[in-house]
């Protein structure tokens, strides 16, 4: 048990946890925007799969992973647009249309994979970029500042989003639309347009989350490779109290405990693997039960907006 708290192991947990958290951060921060504007998008996992596929396919065929990333973002926006049309314009029940979108993304990405690629191949994804000086900090430097660009981007996204939501006029509009769309409407805010923007932004980030797997962290595409990550991302938004920093805390807790349980197994500490595997989920549930105040849920979440109805 003692060797678990040795320096190399703790640094290893830090390194793996940061990598594991990356796709969750993109997807969950994106979902935070959608939910703060009042739209629950349960289709994140399907968008991630489409992003992972298109990022990989375009990256491989063009030989340029930046184009792949762009394709993933665009496909994510398109999927967000589809969700918007269904749930905002046509006012479909959000929980159900989200599941529909997830199944659509799962089916379509598998079909495209089979018809265009046919088999699992690997790609040279984003390489680690060592940040000079910072990476020279003893011990933690290498672990924190020698990652690929998407990892840095995911972590920078958190303060950026918090600032955008809380300090800008547009952020205020988003929060108003999610809290009281009728009032926002009377003040001249275009509720529908704000919601479209947020769901499409969420879609774009979910697409990038998928690409972070297929062209930066794992560097291949396999059918259903997200394995339900998108649903965990949605849960992280609730966990984080609809705040980007809360989402960050949740993603890190979940990822660090996941990295920890792997180390417990590698070191041969005598705990059945089944218990180790359960740890991240159990701890996340416990933290959810004891730690967060649930005050921040947007009042209009899942409620479609119709002008003049009250």
């Amino acid at each position, binding site marked *: 048990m003692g060797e678990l708290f040795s320096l190399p192991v703790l640094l290893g947990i830090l*390194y793996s946890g940061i990598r594991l958290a990356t796709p969750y951060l993109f997807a969950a921060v994106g979902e935070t925007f959608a939910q703060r504007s009042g739209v629950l998008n349960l289709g994140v996992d399907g968008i991630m799969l489409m992003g992972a596929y298109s990022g990989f396919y375009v990256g491989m065929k063009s030989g340029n992973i930046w184009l792949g990333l762009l394709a993933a973002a665009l496909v994510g926006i398109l999927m967000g647009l589809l969700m918007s049309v269904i749930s905002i314009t046509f006012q*479909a029940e959000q929980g159900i249309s989200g599941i*529909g979108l997830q*199944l659509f993304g799962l089916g379509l990405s598998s079909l495209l994979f089979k018809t265009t690629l046919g*088999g699992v191949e690997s790609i040279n994804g984003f390489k680690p970029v060592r940040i000079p000086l910072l990476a020279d900090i003893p011990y933690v430097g290498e672990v924190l500042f020698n990652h690929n660009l998407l990892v840095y981007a995911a972590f920078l996204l958190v303060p950026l989003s918090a600032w955008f939501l809380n300090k800008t006029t547009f952020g205020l509009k988003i929060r108003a639309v999610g809290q009281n769309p009728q009032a926002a409407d009377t003040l001249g805010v275009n509720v529908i347009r704000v919601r479209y923007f947020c769901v499409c932004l969420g879609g774009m980030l979910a697409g990038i989350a998928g690409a972070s797997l297929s062209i930066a962290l794992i560097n*291949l595409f396999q059918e*259903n*490779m997200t394995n339900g990550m998108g649903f965990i991302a949605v849960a992280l938004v609730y966990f984080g109290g609809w705040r980007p920093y809360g989402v960050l805390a949740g993603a890190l807790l979940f990822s660090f405990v996941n990295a920890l349980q792997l*180390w417990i197994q*590698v070191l041969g500490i005598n705990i059945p693997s089944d218990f180790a595997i359960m740890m991240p989920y159990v701890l996340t549930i416990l933290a959810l039960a004891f730690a967060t105040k649930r005050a921040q849920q947007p009042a209009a979440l899942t409620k479609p907006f119709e002008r003049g109805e009250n």
Partner: protein
Amino acid sequence: MKSTLSRVLALVMLVVILAVGCAPAAATPAPEAATAFKVAIVMPSSITDMAFSQSMFEGLKKVQAEMGGESAMEIAYSENLFKVPDAAAAIRDYADKGYNLVIAHGSQYGTSLEQVAPDFPNTAFAWGTSMDTFQASGVNNVFAYQAEAQQGGYVLGTIAALMSKTGIIGETGPVDAGDAKLYIEGFQKGAEAAKPGTTVSVTYTGSFSDVSLMATAAETHIAAGADMLTGSSQSVVGAIGVAKDKGVYWFGTQWDQTSLAPEAVVASQVYDWTGILKDMIASVQKGVMGGKAYTLTFKNGGLVIAYNPAITVPAEVKTAADAAIAGINDGTIVP
């Protein structure tokens, strides 16, 4: 009025999306002449999984080619049916459509098969990995098959231990049961026997499809000093990518995984199901619809070690591997 209309429209769109999303990716070939032997297979993962499902599907295609192509043997398949109720429905559906042999390629399908098989006495069924044909409960039209995965595991473990410089080996498994457990324990035994004092660490991710966690498991093993890795299930593609990036060696199982990372995959244990498939088909054609349990072993040619020509395995290591195979075949080594 407007809102009713938009709800109806939304519902229509949703149905369309669901229909597209749920549509099976696999197309059933059009019925051929009545003489063709019709085989259907239900699989938990995809035919391109580089592992369990692909090995069986490629085996079927090979048998089909040997029998004379699609006019002699017809193959229909349903993949990615990890959930048992979906698979059970597909199994019943294929039996209902008059397929001669319906293969349920997953140990989780057993209980469903035991219920479906008695309803279709003129159809032969097969499932694995298991050795239970349900004859004890009065079912006579089920074959069972199992890969003695521990045999290849033992041999690959021997090679890995002898090639390791750090003396540390990492194994990334999915779930501590079935085929994966056999393989992982055999590998561990082989490594420890070949070079006493070798440390073999084992992790399980709890999932057959969590590519991301499997990749992290591989990273963790490498951080702990492992320079030889192996693992089982379709999710190991993530771990193989990590092995490639970090410059450590990988040993594959179920299917030849060399093509994924020619610079990292030393050798793979490949499942060759053609022998047992041919025997099952011959049995069915003679009217014996089940009751036999098959195993893949080195001895019957069902297990093959496929070396990657791009990586040099020292001659004395290869000799030790061959000796292990010989020992397993004559019974002096029990992996």
